[in-house]
């Protein structure tokens, strides 16, 4: 049994392979004003964007690390490659993508997913989006789905109207860094009243070592429109660390609906420091569905600014941390208008020396009469090497609101385990079943093939975790 366990647990990270694609353009290691000018020139950007980048860089230089959360002092920014371009072109047809990059994405399952039924799909390799497709039908409906760089050129007015409106460079150090060196990411605009019939997908892949990926995603769901977006992230394993510092801004206008699903499965040498912020206007709904399985350190606290009357925001998340991984995630719900509502459901599992932390913030501003919030955090700690902190802040500036918060931390229920085992189920299988049922509220919200994949990943992660 123990021998089998050690074999199972030592199994490699599934997406840990890497390929040797030589970048056609790279700014080399380190960051300076010159590097930023280089990036901007290589992208042939309008002057205002260069000005924006340089100002953000100045902000970045002035900012300190956050005064909370995991230690980032080992993150070697001086040796980081801030911009790398693997190929010169963007490809419309999957067949045209260079063979090596294609092999990588084939292993990740991009075209397969698309072949099935997904609306559009884009893939980001290092800094740039290499493959991009959107079904004709969607284009004729007026939906824009492109990479953020192209959007800057092709839809300059729309872009300028919304870019950087929710996440300002001074939000945090890594938002400032992203604002200075951003590259790639998805840009989606759904016109008023249009429903995107199927989820739109993007994949992000870090391949070279010591690389920083700074994607910038901007989504606008116009009045009464409806969008579901899914993103997945992977990277190969190296000895040196990589950084993924994304900024995502989602604007859901009156009566709109947006669901943003992320499955983050970075390898354990990636620092994932993300800033995700959404605003929901009158009666709009914004839903974050967030799964964090990998990375070395994750810091991510997606927020919804409930800025319109009757707006609703939700967060449904799972985090699984093992082997020294620190997952420091959470959610923020800011009630800025009357009759808004929010719900946060967070499920975390820590095992074999992992740390899962929940850090949240619910705020009812003065003008939030009639608003409601519900927060639920459940954690299972599998063994006595693992840790969990739950740090929720609830700030209330209005008397006509209601907030409920509950959290629970425990080990696997012995009663449940005993019950299953008394029915002849092995301890490992029983443990897996209990964990699966624990995360089920999350997996049932995922598109089918993601749910299957996620269940498989969790089962894989849970192998040999009987303490």
């Amino acid at each position: 049994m123990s021998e089998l366990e050690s074999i199972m647990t030592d199994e490699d990270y599934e997406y840990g392979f890497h390929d040797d694609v030589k970048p056609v353009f790279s700014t080399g290691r380190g960051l300076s004003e010159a590097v930023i000018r280089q990036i901007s020139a290589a992208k042939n950007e309008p002057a205002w964007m260069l000005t924006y980048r340089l100002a953000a860089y100045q902000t970045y230089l002035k900012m300190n690390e956050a005064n909370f959360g995991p230690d980032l002092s080992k993150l070697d920014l001086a040796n980081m490659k801030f911009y790398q371009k693997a190929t010169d072109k963007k490809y419309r047809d999957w067949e045209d993508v260079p063979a090596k990059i294609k092999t990588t994405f084939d292993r990740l399952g991009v075209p397969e997913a698309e072949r099935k039924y997904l609306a559009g799909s884009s893939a980001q390799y290092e800094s740039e989006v290499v493959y991009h497709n959107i079904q004709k039908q969607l284009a004729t409906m007026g939906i824009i789905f492109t990479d953020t760089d192209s959007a800057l050129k092709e839809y300059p007015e729309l872009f300028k109207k919304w870019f950087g409106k929710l996440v300002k460079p001074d939000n945090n150090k890594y938002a400032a860094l992203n604002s200075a060196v951003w590259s790639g990411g998805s840009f989606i605009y759904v016109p008023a009243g249009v429903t995107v019939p199927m989820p739109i997908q993007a994949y992000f892949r870090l391949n070279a070592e010591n690389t920083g990926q700074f994607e910038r995603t901007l989504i606008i769901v116009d009045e009464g429109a409806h969008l579901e977006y899914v993103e997945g992230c992977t990277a190969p394993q190296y000895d040196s660390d990589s950084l993924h510092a994304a900024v995502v801004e989602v604007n859901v206008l009156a009566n709109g609906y947006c669901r943003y699903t992320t499955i983050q499965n970075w390898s354990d040498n990636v620092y994932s420091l993300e800033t995700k912020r959404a605003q929901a206007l009158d009666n709009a709904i914004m839903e974050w569905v967030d799964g964090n399985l990998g990375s070395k350190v994750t810091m991510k606290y997606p927020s919804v600014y409930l800025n319109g009357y009757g707006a609703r925001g939700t967060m449904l998340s799972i985090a699984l941390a093992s082997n020294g991984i620190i997952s420091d995630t959470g959610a923020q719900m800011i009630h800025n208008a009357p009759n808004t509502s929010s719900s946060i459901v967070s499920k975390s599992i820590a095992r074999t020396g992992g740390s899962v932390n929940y850090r949240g913030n619910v705020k009812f501003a003065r003008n939030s009469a009639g608003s409601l919030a519900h927060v639920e955090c459940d954690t299972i700690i599998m063994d006595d090497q693992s840790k969990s902190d739950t740090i929720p802040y609830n700030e209330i500036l209005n008397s006509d609101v209601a907030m409920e918060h509950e959290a629970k931390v425990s080990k696997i229920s012995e009663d449940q385990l005993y019950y299953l085992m008394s029915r002849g189920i092995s301890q490992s299988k029983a443990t897996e079943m209990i964990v699966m049922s624990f995360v089920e509220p999350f997996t049932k919200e995922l598109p089918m093939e993601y749910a299957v994949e996620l269940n498989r990943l969790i089962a894989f992660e849970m192998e040999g975790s009987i303490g």
Partner: protein
Amino acid sequence: MVEKVEKQALATAMERILKQVEPQWLKEIRIQAWQRANQLELPRVDKIAYKDWPQFITSKTIIKQQKDIDAQQQIEYQLSNYADHYSKKLAKSMQEKGLKTYTFKEAIQLVPQILKDQLIKMLKQANTKTEAYQIALMTSGWLIKVPDNVEIDEVLTILTDQASDQQTDYCNQTIVILGKNSKLKIMHEIASTPQSASPTHIGVNITLHANAQLQYIGLDQLASNFGYLKRTAHLATASQLNWQLVDLSKGNLISECTSHLIGAGSESKINVISITSQQQQHGFNTKLLNYGHHSKGEINQRGVLLDASKLVFNGIGKIYHGAHGTYANQENRLMMLSSHASGDANPILLIEENDVVAGHAASVGQIDKQQLYYLMSRGLSKAMAQKLVVTGFLSKTIDSSIDQALAQRILGKIEEKLVNG
């Protein structure tokens, strides 16, 4: 600016204290504490920006004013301390059973070793500027000791009154030591009268030896502009401590209460009630630290906010690695009675061990309209119905083991604060 003025005031106070006739060991402890204070930071209390408030600065003018404390009091305290004036009226049965009580000065003369050990222990554990200053500048207080195997059933009533118009610097420490298998109940009323700009610093330090049991009721009615209350307890094997803290203070307040559950099977419950009104800002750091296996901790905090006041409940439960089979739970509930008020309920769990059951809950809401409607439909005025609902909400946090007469007194004080603000 505040900082600079405070530094001078503190240095002057320290100089004056060191000139007093005191044994050398005490002077040394004071100097060490002073040095530590200058290196340490103010306590971290999340979500309340109190660090710019004047906390140590003291009024320069000393008005000598005689006050007949006994005549003003509705009830007779067994131990009372008004500025430098002490009075002791211990029940005979308590004396017979062997309860020892010493004023600060008596402790220096009669039980120097116990006092010294306590102060050294407190100094070692002081990890904030305020705690260290409180040791360096302590001017008054009590040392209370219950011998092993002594159970005292009556309640020991203590009044600590700053007399804030009389003294410039006020750091009071109450030290309570319960021997093995002993038992005690304390009702500790803390006041600063009359209202003044002088800050109040009061510490309560409790040590429970194996199997000891203590019920501590703190009724805080400070009138000073700033009050800092620091209550700490260390619990040995299978000892039990129930804190019942009722905060009705009229100025700004930082109140910290910590139980260190060190011994296996030790238990502590911390119940907190707070009412804030007008412009008052009150911040609570209520902590349970589980070190010992099978230790058990529970925090219940309930607060009511009126006017433009601010109330912050930080509940912190930490379970250290190796504390198997521990239980930690907390509830933080706020009732907002005004739309100009600001409330924070932050239940924090820090867990390094898997064989535990830990949970927390927080809620914020307005007054229950159904309850209000029910009472009004029975002919009560709205104001009366509201008072009853609010008192009912708060009284759920009054421990059922508390003596009826004391519980009534607490409820009376709560109603007074709800009406008068």
